[in-house]
């Protein structure tokens, strides 16, 4: 017979009283019993309610004293999930700490350093950051990660959500959705789950403005036009399309396309419509894709191929490829002669069984799609949204950067290596006169690839990752940053041969940082570089720092362009393959993804802020401007930003 909650509650109260009465220096002796009984309550029905009933006393009693959770104002929302996933004590104390925050947020407790609003903001941010725990996705069950505690975490979050003002949370969620959709990622799973969460949390009492904002996203997923809204069932929708007059079809097309263009999200009905139009009225496709004149010209030029591709790859399950198709046409990629045959080849490609299996896993089961359809749809997406390629949960930023770069500037090459990998299970690169075959290599940065990736990445990353690693290990002992040689060989001749790095990779010493900064200005800043424009993306290395400016590691991104933002300030626009281009890097350096002149998928920072996080870049040695002319106060301010953030982990000489 299980012990009754009452007994445990009593024991918890006794332990808390004992702790409360204990002298300050001996709290740790009594904390153990509180944690033990709390742990039992966490696992019980209504246990969190009982714990929360005492949450206003936790701090005063000394529950957190002398431990990492002691100061409520120093707690970090991004660390909450990690603690909850950890087993044992961290989980228990984290739960108690979050309940303390809730008590402050509800005005039941006061804290000298954390106001009601701050506590509320903290919890809202925790919620938004942990949607995956709050709404776990069944398809993720295959994850290797042991998530035994996620049930407890989920229970906690559900409890918090009942108590939090859903208004604030919905607002935060919508901001988050705005921010993520602005980047137009190919993989939209996270966005979808956020929209669904927000939908569950809104009710008639929600802010009408939020409701309207959210409605836009919900409709984009579920049916943005009157007809698609009316006929949720795709077969009914399809039957009804057949009854429509041309004009009605146009307005239906326009409204679906408008939703897609504003959100980057595609409704399943859209796929039905496109397939229908492609067969019956291909002339209306331009409305359904909302093409500009260049896109329309490209469509007309390649009408047969486009129809063929729609037939082979546009299905409700691959509906996001419609957005990719529209952008691909507008980018004019099909006018590039190797592209049409390259795409046609994918339709009948003999895909290897293991690749086929991975591709099939990428879409939900029961859709009846072939691996070829999935791969073709994925290729269209990559060609249409080169900046939407993400590395997912893998440390493979280099591979993602490569796919993105080739999709922009070498689609023929990309269409060459996709079949090599999918059909032959091998990709070969020449490096300094020697061929490197991926099939001969093991290891890489991600030997166990996390498969939540777009189809093209799914096929290519395992190969590219190993090749890149192999190239890096071949140059490891040369006494200089290996990217100097590897980047041009790996990404292609678009990468400039000049290379400069902020620190010596052997000693870790930062040497002549001022010179490094000036050279970057002289080769990249339009005021100093004699107006040479950046033509191809520049693969550069940056120091990733957290919100406190503490170094987290090195990361690969690409500078896409350097231009003045609407306010006239020079910014560096860049592609960040990490799926979330606007993290806070500390020192109030926060890349933006919209409203500063960014194109879809770009992040940006003011030029000097970006420079302060840069550690290596390529440049054209024949296109240098006037390094000496760079203002010393600019250099000095960058030097200070660098030295007080990542610079603390390096020796400066």
């Amino acid at each position: 017979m299980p012990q009754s909650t009452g007994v445990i509650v009593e024991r918890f109260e006794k332990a808390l009283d004992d702790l409360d009465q204990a002298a300050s220096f001996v709290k740790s002796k009594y904390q153990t019993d509180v944690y033990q009984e709390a742990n039992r309550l966490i696992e019980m029905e209504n246990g969190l309610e009982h714990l929360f009933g005492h949450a206003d006393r936790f701090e005063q009693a000394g529950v957190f004293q002398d431990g990492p959770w002691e100061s409520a104002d120093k707690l970090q929302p991004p660390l909450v999930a990690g603690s909850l996933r950890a087993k044992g004590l961290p989980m228990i104390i984290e739960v108690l700490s979050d309940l303390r925050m809730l008590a402050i947020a509800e005005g039941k407790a006061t804290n000298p350093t954390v106001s009601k609003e701050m506590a509320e903001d903290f919890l809202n941010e925790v919620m938004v950051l942990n949607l995956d725990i709050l709404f776990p996705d069944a398809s993720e069950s295959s994850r290797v990660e042991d998530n035994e505690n996620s049930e407890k975490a989920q229970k906690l979050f559900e409890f918090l959500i009942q108590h939090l003002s859903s208004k604030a949370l919905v607002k935060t969620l919508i901001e988050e959705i705005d921010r993520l959709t602005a980047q137009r990622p190919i993989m939209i799973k996270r966005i979808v789950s956020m929209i669904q969460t927000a939908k569950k949390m809104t009710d008639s009492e929600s802010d009408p403005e939020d409701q309207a904002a959210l409605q836009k996203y919900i409709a984009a997923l579920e049916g943005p036009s009157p007809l698609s809204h009316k006929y949720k069932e795709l077969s009914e929708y399809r039957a009804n399309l057949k009854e429509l007059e041309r004009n009605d079809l146009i307005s239906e097309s326009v409204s679906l396309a408008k939703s897609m263009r504003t959100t980057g999200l595609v409704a399943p009905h859209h796929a039905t419509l496109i397939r229908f139009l492609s067969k019956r009225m291909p002339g209306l496709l331009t409305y359904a894709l909302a093409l500009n004149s260049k896109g329309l010209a490209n469509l007309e030029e390649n009408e047969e191929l486009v129809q063929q591709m729609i037939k082979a790859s546009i299905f409700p399950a691959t509906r996001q490829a419609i957005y990719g198709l529209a952008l691909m046409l507008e980018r004019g990629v099909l006018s590039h002669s190797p592209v049409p045959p390259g795409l046609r080849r994918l339709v009948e490609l003999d895909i290897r069984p293991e690749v086929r299996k991975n591709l099939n896993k990428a879409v939900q089961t029961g859709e009846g799609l072939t691996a070829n359809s999935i791969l073709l749809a994925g290729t269209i997406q990559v060609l249409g949204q080169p900046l939407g390629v993400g590395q997912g949960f893998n440390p493979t930023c280099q591979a993602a950067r490569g796919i993105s770069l080739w999709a922009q500037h070498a689609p023929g090459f990309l269409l060459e290596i996709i079949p090599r990998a999918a059909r032959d299970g091998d990709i070969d690169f020449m490096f300094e006169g020697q061929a490197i075959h991926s099939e001969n290599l093991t290891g890489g940065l991600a030997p166990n690839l996390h498969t939540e990736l777009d189809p093209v990445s799914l096929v290519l990353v395992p190969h590219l990752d190993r090749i890149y690693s192999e190239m890096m290990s071949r140059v490891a002992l040369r006494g200089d940053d290996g990217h100097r040689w590897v980047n041009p060989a790996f990404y292609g001749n678009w990468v400039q041969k000049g290379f400069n790095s902020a620190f010596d990779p052997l000693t870790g010493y930062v040497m002549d940082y001022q010179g490094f900064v000036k050279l970057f200005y002289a080769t990249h800043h339009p005021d100093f570089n004699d107006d040479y424009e950046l033509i191809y993306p520049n693969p550069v290395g940056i120091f990733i720092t957290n919100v406190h400016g503490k170094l987290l590691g090195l990361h690969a991104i690409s500078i896409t362009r350097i231009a003045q933002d609407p306010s006239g300030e020079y910014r560096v626009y860049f592609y960040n393959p990490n799926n979330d281009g606007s993290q806070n890097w500390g020192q109030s350096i926060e890349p933006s993804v919209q409203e500063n002149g960014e194109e879809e998928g770009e992040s940006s920072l003011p030029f000097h802020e970006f420079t302060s996080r840069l550690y290596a870049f390529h440049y054209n040695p024949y296109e240098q401007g006037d390094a000496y002319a760079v203002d010393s106060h600019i250099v000095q301010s960058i030097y200070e930003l660098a030295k007080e953030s990542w610079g603390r982990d390096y020796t400066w000489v």
Partner: protein
Amino acid sequence: MELDQMEVNSSVEQEVTSPETKPYLTALIGWSLQAIEVAARMERPFVVVGPPEFESYAEKHEIGFVGWDFNKLNEGSDQLYKKLKALGVEVAIPLYEECVEWAGALNARFRNEPRVFNRSLLLRDKGMMKRKAQIAGIKVGVFEEAHNKEDIVRFLRRVNDALLKIEGDVMDPIHVKPLDKAGSVGHMAIRTVDEIEEIDDNAFPLLMESHLDGQEFSVEAFIHKGKVQFLNITEYVRLGYSNFVPASPSLMEKRPQIVEAVQQLVDAFEIEYGVIHPEYFITPNGTLHFGEVAARVPGGHIFELIERAYGFSAYEAQILCSDPKTTQEELDEFFPSPYDYKGYAGCLMVHPQKDYVNDLEVPDELEQHGYFEKHDLFTPAQGKVAQRIGFGNHYGTIFFFGEESDEMRHLLKEYEEYDFYV
């Protein structure tokens, strides 16, 4: 350590402080939150002498503190006495094994009785301790000090020769342990010559002794003015894993004999104040063999068990008995009758039985057992299990309390086999 500075300060203060400081301070030698808590509760002025790493904690919580490295013995050691004297300390109470001679040295100075220090040294050398006991006519096993591996080989052979073992017989084990470590730290049972090779050369000198059969138990005796004021018997279910307080009736029957033996020990060692924690073996025919004795807070949560069973704080008892100024009336009022216990209090110290642990599983039937009180096991951070040192670094403890010693023994035995870690 700013010794020079301290010297200047203390010499100045010494002149100011009168020799009969009142109220005087008690120095707790070692770091124990339980002891600090009790001293604070007793409203007794005290200062803690502990390893310097606790200084910031003490400062944060306003605990009077003197940082001291107990491993460093040199001519500067005198500074500790000077400093404490200047603060007005008159009593030093040892909490750990390594602090016993420091407290002894301090008390020798405070009381102006040099021999107090020598007595404390006796308690810190297991070879001297045995010899002293033997001289006093206390029954001990055969023992010798070993300075190298050959000594151990010879001792093993001689003991087994004496037992009339011949070539091919299974040898009787001997035990070796460091002369000055707490409890079971560094203890090894040796059965074959090969095992001797595994001993580290740095471990010498060691004490060797013959194996004693019989039931092992410990006694916690609170001594004041050379007289046993209270005596608890702790029954070991398995040394280092489980024990309970008070002992079961079969052992309690022998209590008069045990009390007599302990008083004999106290007399022989000329122990005047404080707590001692001797270990004995008792053979089925009732013969008592003395194992060893320590003069500090015992391990195995025994003080906590005494408090649970008898209702008085053993830390408080230790402080009272360590102070020559405590009166007999105070002590009589403080200690209950040894037969006046509320029940049996036992504990099981848990250590994973595997090298790598993933998770903790405490069975429901344990938590629901009427004797179960609490435990302090938490799911560990996944990982490799550290090797046990002595019996100190257990992962956690399960506490029981109940009316029947048989059930207690049964429970402790049952769950000692259980692996709480998966």
